[in-house]
């Protein structure tokens, strides 16, 4: 087998994962959103990765290693995009990666159920003259819809290998790699049957001829088309020569414009779609249309009344199931550790048990009882295709705060964890929308914070209070949204989003995604909590805590009416929010929390915890996504809000509790 890696070092992009592998092969997965690209990636690499089902969730490039017949191959999963028009960050990242990193083979995954739109992108890849292997996914769903794709004919027309796949069952996935390797041995790269309208073709040929004279590299159709469209095709040439070519391209484009009476980008897009449509017509045979389950389901799921009903029912069910499950897990784990609890004597033993062990099992409770089920449910929803429906339903409500339906997805994901949710805000291609959505997302009670609400207020005061606090938090998010919308009015035109077919998620894939998050938490979160818990217990044993609590006392005790020790919790809670509950248990030292906190204090403490600051991991993401200035502002705003609302709540709720 031939190893033909052409890795180059990356100059000006920190976003892109470099091919630092020397002589290993690299395969890059590209395609539209929702085509099952990430599922194929998971099947190939076995690496657990986020796979999603909605606009641009795969915003980062992911890399994994595949062992194929004893050959080590790097596989890169690129963001799902619809075009190379460099409209969004995903498009730019993908284009840049392909052009600078030159992966050995590009695996273009397409959706058999909407071949026409998918081929639009494939045609762009073919224009670029790239080594492409096509994987047609969702053949099972296509079959159900009576759609058959003639793979052989498609292969003939496109001039590249085409493989049938059903990614979630792993069918055809390794054949894709075989095809890619075969391709490297014997490149097939025939674009002769991919021709646009004669007027456009003539002009592409003229430009190619001009480009051919005196350029070291072979120009591609794509570069000629870029020139026609008035874009910079990234060709190295001295200025004078280039200027001449550009002015020629302008002239040729002008001819097309006057002929078609449309602007040049529209002409090119229409040509590509016309070709994609004619190919689709040739290779796809459709028997009589079946009324699909998907359509029937949408009549309910997108219904102006029932749709919201289903949505809220789903949300409520998630919260109830997770809190019941969490309660059960808490009982089991606590019971186990209580049963093996040794005699505690001396400061060292105290630190070991009350700090280390209790910290450890409290972290386990949060991880197994709350984080894992939350992510299982969320990834199931995301795989099933329900999330774009939620975006559709929530589009109108989101408009009142100047956002659109897309932003409801990070907000809902935020219920699981703010970290991926903040990253997901990148799908919004408008800076203002992104900023507001990110800020609101950090306010969404994540699983960890919800676990505090349920585990503290819910468990010790009553579920009504827990629901009330969560409701208040959502109201607060909405009000802040209204205020931000007033300060920064929207100018975004709205969503343009694909609504995919419903799919029965592969449980393996769902489990892998949830496991990934869970593992991440086990590796990073648990040690942090144990260390924090040990430090606090040590300070407690040697009576050092008093200094810290004294400094914070004016705020915690006088203004918020909390016990003095909560000052420490608030500081350590920055590490991870769920640490608050864990540390609170270790403070109580095995006794019931009710002995160290009154119900009113629990409520105020929970409200402050919900608002006061994003956890350290979220802050890290915020810094990367929004910059130092915006992050500082958000953090300060949230601290201020928490202090203000906490103090007011202490005084107002004191009348009831």
């Amino acid at each position: 087998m031939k190893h033909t890696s052409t890795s180059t070092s990356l100059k000006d992009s920190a976003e892109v994962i470099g091919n630092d592998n020397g002589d290993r092969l690299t395969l890059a997965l590209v395609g539209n959103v929702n085509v099952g690209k990430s599922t194929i990636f998971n099947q190939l690499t076995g690496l657990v990765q986020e796979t999603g089902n909605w606009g641009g969730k795969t915003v980062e490039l992911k890399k994994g290693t595949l062992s194929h017949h004893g050959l080590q191959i790097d596989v890169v999963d690129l963001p799902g995009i619809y075009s190379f028009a460099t409209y969004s960050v995903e498009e730019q990242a993908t284009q840049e990666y392909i052009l600078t990193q030159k992966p050995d083979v590009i695996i273009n995954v397409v959706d058999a159920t909407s071949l026409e739109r998918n081929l639009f992108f494939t045609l762009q890849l073919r224009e670029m003259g790239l080594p492409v292997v096509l994987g047609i996914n969702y053949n099972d769903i296509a079959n159900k819809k009576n759609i058959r794709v003639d793979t052989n004919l498609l292969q003939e027309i496109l001039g590249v290998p085409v493989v049938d796949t059903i990614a979630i069952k792993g069918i055809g996935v390794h054949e894709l790699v075989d095809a890619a390797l075969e391709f490297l041995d014997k490149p097939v790269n025939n674009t002769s049957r991919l021709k646009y309208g004669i007027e456009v073709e003539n002009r592409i040929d003229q430009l190619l001829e001009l480009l051919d004279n005196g350029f070291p590299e072979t120009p591609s159709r794509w570069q000629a088309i870029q020139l026609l469209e008035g874009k910079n095709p990234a060709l190295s040439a001295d200025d004078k020569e280039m200027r001449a070519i550009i002015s020629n391209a302008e002239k040729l484009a002008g001819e097309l414009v006057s002929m078609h009476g449309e602007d040049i980008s529209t002409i090119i897009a229409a040509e590509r779609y016309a070709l994609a449509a004619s190919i689709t017509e040739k290779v796809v045979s459709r028997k009589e249309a079946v009324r699909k389950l998907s359509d029937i389901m949408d009549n309910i799921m997108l219904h102006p009344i029932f749709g919201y009903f289903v949505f809220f029912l789903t949300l409520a069910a998630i919260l109830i199931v997770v809190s019941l499950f969490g309660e059960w897990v808490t009982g089991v784990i606590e019971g186990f550790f209580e049963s093996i609890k040794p005699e505690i004597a001396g400061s060292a033993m105290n630190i070991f048990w009350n700090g280390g062990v209790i910290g450890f099992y409290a972290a386990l409770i949060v991880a197994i009882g709350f984080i894992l089920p939350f992510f299982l449910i969320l990834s199931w929803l995301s795989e099933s295709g329900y999330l774009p429906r939620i975006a559709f339903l929530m589009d109108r409500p989101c408009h009142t705060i100047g956002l659109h339906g897309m932003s409801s997805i990070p907000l809902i994901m935020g219920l699981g964890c703010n970290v991926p949710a903040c990253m997901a805000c990148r799908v919004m291609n408008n800076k203002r929308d992104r900023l507001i959505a990110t800020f609101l997302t950090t306010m969404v009670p994540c699983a960890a914070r919800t676990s505090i609400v349920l585990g503290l207020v819910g468990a010790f005061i009553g579920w009504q209070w827990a629901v009330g606090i969560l409701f208040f938090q959502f109201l607060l998010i909405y009000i802040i949204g209204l205020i931000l919308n007033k300060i920064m009015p929207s100018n975004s035109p709205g969503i343009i989003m694909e609504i995919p077919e419903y799919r029965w998620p592969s449980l393996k894939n769902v489990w892998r995604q949830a496991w990934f998050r869970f593992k991440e938490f086990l590796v990073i979160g648990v040690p942090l909590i144990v260390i924090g818990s040990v430090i606090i217990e040590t300070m407690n044993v040697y009576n050092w805590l008093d200094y810290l609590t004294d400094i914070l006392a004016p705020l915690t005790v006088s203004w918020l009416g909390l016990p003095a020790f909560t000052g420490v919790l608030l500081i350590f809670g920055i590490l991870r929010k769920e640490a608050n509950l864990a540390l609170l248990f270790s403070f109580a030292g095995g006794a019931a929390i009710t002995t160290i906190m009154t119900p009113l204090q629990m409520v105020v403490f929970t409200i402050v915890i919900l608002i006061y600051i994003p956890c350290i991991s979220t802050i890290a993401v915020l810094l990367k996504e929004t910059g130092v200035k915006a992050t500082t502002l958000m953090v300060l705003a949230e601290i201020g809000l928490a202090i203000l609302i906490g103090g007011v709540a202490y005084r107002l709720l004191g009348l009831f509790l």
Partner: protein
Amino acid sequence: MHNSTEEYLEAVYNITRDGKAASTSDISKRLNISAASVTEMFKKLADEDYISYSPYHGVTLTGKGSALGRKMARKHRLLERFLHDTLKIGKEKVHDEACAMEHTLSDEAERALCLSLKYPDRCPDDEKMIPPCDLDFATCQECSEWNKGNFEQLRKRQKEVISLLELKASREATIAFIRGGKCMLQRLCDMGLTPGTKIKVSRIAPLKGPVEINLRGSKLALGNRVAGNIFVEAPDKIEQNERKG
């Protein structure tokens, strides 16, 4: 007298937007003119084939009347945008100013205004949609790049266009015109919404919610405002109904 024809047709156009007929009292209230004068004017406009008038039902616009009414509404709202955005005149004042200016604004100036304001789609005071122009362009990009010959040489659109929001659900239509800047157009084209494409609206969420469309064998959700800027050839039936009155 010509001014008042335009003013009447604009008023009727605005009222009949939702598909209902305009009554004498609607117009009388809107233009602050006595019912008797309105009835008299209706008769005159009906004679000139601008409206179809049935005494107890109210009036609807004919094809000819609709074109003129839409044009006046467009000029009015474009002027409002100009007064508000460029001249920084308060929202509450732009309506009256625009009312006075709209009748003297030539079609050529209307196009220039639209181009310089970057193809606005809503008027500033009540967020009403600015009707599309009547020039035979498929995109605003094309209009902005057109630079040969005089304005008089520009062709008018053959068929009336309506936005996706006005298209009845599950009716198929062909994209005739897309309003908006280069970025928006590129995005729509990339998603398959090129002029000339057949699409079907399958669902319009209530309260100005998003629109679900079928095209090229797949489904897309479009925000309400995006959908409002995609225009299709009006289906024949609607036109016939309008003619019949």
